[in-house]
């Protein structure tokens, strides 16, 4: 590998990351949270407020980020789902990332504290994600957002939720979603793709960890029905889904499934921008001070901005 920054960081990550697959959910969560670095970009946004919204399954916590700048036009609303294998992470772990995203895409970001496994099995997380999107669409105006420009976004397991929510919205009667942003998404509990075999260990996210994550989420080895609300590639077809930005990393066991999902979308005529980063690993894009991540984020912000339709003009007063 040419890039010593990448290989150096990989080494540190590999040594430092706890063997979550040998722990309970709570232990793993605590171990990973202990490694968290403090957020250094609090000022990126004008305001961040925590709210609890009502859903069919009970109360759900969200954090809403408002970008700086004068009010004016309604802004896009990005509903964001953090990664962490359906088991780990929370609003805090991705706080810095959400602030950056809000700042650079000039969007209201709604980060969702969906229920985690193994305490809550599939499709609990997906149901929360969908509820959050419906809420955001209904309350867009109140948030200074544009209900015609709702975006779902997420990294890793969050990417799974961002994809699944689009299928749910399509199948279950809305709301309209303008774009989906899937950053090295978790797509399928099958651990034998070429990339799974090549990058099973040594590249931060391991096949063992992925097996364990899925087992926590599924509560076993079977995918509950409807399967595509958990494993989005299983949808009978992917037509009519919102335009997609998909990011994959070359040294990621999940690389192939991300690519396959992108291909499935494109085959069904979904407008697609698929950015592939050879030589990078799962999780790289949210690392704050990491050269390749800074570059990939800049591109991601631009992609989100350009894949969205133009702002809906305000209705002239009658």
């Amino acid at each position, binding site marked *: *590998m*040419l*890039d010593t*920054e990448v290989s150096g960081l990989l080494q540190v990550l590999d040594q430092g990351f706890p063997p979550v697959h040998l722990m309970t959910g709570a232990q793993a969560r605590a171990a990973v949270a202990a490694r968290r670095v403090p957020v250094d970009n609090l000022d990126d946004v004008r305001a961040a407020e925590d709210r609890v919204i009502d859903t069919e399954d009970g109360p759900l916590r969200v954090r809403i980020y408002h970008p700086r700048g004068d009010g004016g036009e309604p802004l896009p609303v990005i509903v964001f789902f953090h990664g962490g294998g359906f088991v780990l992470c929370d609003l805090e772990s991705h706080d810095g990332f959400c602030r950056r995203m809000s700042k650079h895409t000039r969007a209201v970001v709604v980060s969702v504290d969906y229920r985690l496994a193994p305490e809550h099995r599939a499709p609990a997380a997906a149901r929360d994600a969908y509820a959050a999107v419906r809420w955001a669409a209904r309350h867009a105006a109140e948030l200074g957002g544009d209900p015609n420009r709702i975006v779902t976004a997420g990294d890793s397991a969050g990417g799974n939720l961002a994809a699944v929510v689009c299928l749910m919205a399509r199948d279950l009667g809305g709301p309209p979603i303008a774009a989906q942003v899937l950053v090295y998404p978790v797509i399928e509990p099958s651990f034998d793709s070429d990339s799974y075999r090549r990058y099973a260990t040594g590249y931060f996210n391991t096949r063992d960890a992925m097996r364990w994550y899925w087992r926590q989420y599924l509560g076993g080895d079977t995918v509950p029905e409807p399967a595509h609300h958990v494993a989005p590639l299983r949808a009978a077809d992917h037509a009519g889904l919102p*335009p997609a930005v998909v990011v994959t990393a*070359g040294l990621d066991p999940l690389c192939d499934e991300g690519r396959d999902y*992108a291909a499935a979308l*494109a085959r069904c*005529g*979904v*407008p*697609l*921008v*698929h*950015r*592939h*980063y*050879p*030589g990078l690993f799962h999780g790289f894009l949210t690392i704050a001070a990491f*050269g*390749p991540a*800074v*570059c*990939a984020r*800049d*591109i991601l912000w*631009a992609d989100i901005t*350009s*894949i969205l339709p133009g702002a809906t003009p305000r209705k002239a007063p009658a």
Partner: protein
Amino acid sequence: MNTSDDTPRPETCDVLVVGAGFAGLYAVHRSVAAGFTTIGVEAAPGVGGTWYWNRYPGARCDVESIDYSYSFDAELQDSWVWSERYATQPEIHAYLEHVADRFGLRRHFRFGRRVEGARFDEGSSAWTVTADTGHAYRARFLVLATGSLSAPHRPDIPGAGDFAGEVLFTARWPHENVSFAGKRVGVIGTGSSGIQSIPIIAEEAASLTVFQRSPNYSVPAFNRPLTEEEQVRIRAEYPERRRKSAYSGAGTPHETYPRGAFEIDEAERRAAFEARWREGGVLFGKTFPNQTVDEAVNRLARDFAEAKIRAIVTDRRVADDLVPVDHPIGTKRICTDSGYYETFNRADVTLVNLRREPITAITERGIRTATGSYELDTIVYATGFDAMTGAVTQIDIRGARGSGIGEAWANGPVTYLGMAIPGFPNLFTVNGPGSPSVLANMVLTAEQQVDWLIDLIADCRRRGVTEVEARADAAAKWTEHVSEAAHRTLFPLAGSWYMGANIEGKSRIFMPYIGGFGNYRRICDQVRADGYEGFVLTERKGTEAMTGPTSAVRTTADRPVISLAGKVAIITGAARGQGAAEAELFVRLGATVVITDTNERDGTALAGRLGPSASFRPLDVTDGAAWSRVVAETAAVHGRIDVLVNNAGVWRKAPLEEWTEDELRGMFDVNLLGPILGMRAVAPTMSVTGGSIVNVASTAGIRGHGGALPYASSKWGLRGASRSAAQEYAPRGIRVNCVCPGVVDTPMIDAAALDLSRQPMPRAGTAEEIANMVAFLASDAGAYCTGADFVVDGGATA
């Protein structure tokens, strides 16, 4: 729609190459061969680049011509004869014209058009390129082969416009003969161009005044014609010489003295310097290891060179002015001259040291300095170039996400591997900043980069990637590495054009990569092996509409089902008949075809007729060593082998008793052993990209053929070999099939003499009809076919 718009509709292509110098010509050649629709745009009215523009007297190369010439085609290399060690501009220009003709490159170029603008449209992943003539182009990929030394530097001297006499630029020399006879000539500039032209101008002019700001080191070329023996030796040694050069420091086979300057005594050292001096030219700068790294070693070389200058120049004060004092030797390009220092011994030549008396103005009648005035009839500017970046930044380039090249390079050029610029997807530079370029033999650097880039573009096509862009951080790191490498040497101590120091206001950063050509090649190869680490590979689908109306770019992906675009095929027995029909069809479908046969005359003629995508190699299929050679050459020239058609075969009908044992063996050797040797020879190369082998058997290999027992047996055997090979090679991505022609009208069989009235289609097939099946199996349309027989016989075996 505005149809009255008088700007012409853009021409579209896959790959647009700007420049028709060494780099641009080769880029077009490779791009076409890889099956891309390709357009070249060149400002000059013809090919040649540097060697088109720089026609000043004495212009010649300073890297030996046998090295400073293309290596990609052995036949080109062997057929071209360089008359001198260092060829003159007319000869190099003639060579490039020859190359353009030989490979049919001119038809891809639009000459006399200077590219002024290039804008990337993200929705359709395509560049829109505009020329000063109003012509426009749309291309998915844009290759800037615009030259490192192609944007002339015209110093802004007060009063320059007032001069009433003749003004000439070495880098824009007129085509018609320039006469200096009886003229008082002034030359500004004593770099390589000035130093080459000064002795010749001095010969002819009434008087010559040389305006020197900084003296340079110059080493005599010791140029001379190459002798007959040398020509023979050069040809014998060429493969080895090129192999060595490919991984050398500077693209030539030369090495430094085997021991360090301080490990040997004074006498040996002097002898080593003397020997290098006698070899001539720039190599003197690298006599000893570390000579441009260690000041003490460098000092020794400087002292030696200084003594040489002083031994020639008789006037001591003039010699003082000619000896460089401001830079270690070799840290600016050493000039290569023929009689430069001797010129200053002439009574009609004056050296003006501008450090002592700077130019204050140019007047109607000549040049005025702080202390003097020089009346002139002609002023020659040999003032160099806005090197490395000038030709690129002269174009208004707008990349993705709103980036412009001016801002992107405001603090000096930033590139990844000297080929890609972050923010500018699908745009590549050849011999650009950050690559070895001007520090090495630039013909080989161009070949190496073009090969790498065309592979990258072909990989993109294969993977459906529509956009490839360097990551900003990867480029920043590479650029830092380029700079660090330079700072481990003495090079940054010189105010050279490598540093941008010759252009006012240009940022000072060491631009070429000094880490060595061979090392650089290895790094590039590693990046490719790692799946293009450092790049972002983007696939866009259905996003055109999202960024407004743009005409979509047609790429080769939209071509008909049976396409052989980008594929490299070897066909045996292809000089005539069936094989020739295959070769012709393959070329038409976009393949690069290596025609092989024992019949050299017809094979060469066919290759010539089929144009640049076809070449001929002699091959007797029964000779295993010959197979290895053909495979190695094909892989070396084209980088891959996708298709092998074992077409060669012999036919004879005679009762078995009439065959001698040797005749029997001979038939089996050609018809059965030949294809087996071929499959074995190509498999290692073919398995890199995957591929298809088509063995031409016969319907005689399906039923029997009484009266042609040996023939039928060999074809039965070939079917067995094919099926077995299909099983053996499937895991390596190689398909193997047989085509079984019935009666076909070729020179091998006199079809007219046969009675075909009982055949369902009562006629002989044509060679083309067989070729169609072969092409289908060779193409990706036949992707699911392997280990099978495909009968093309007008129903004869039905």
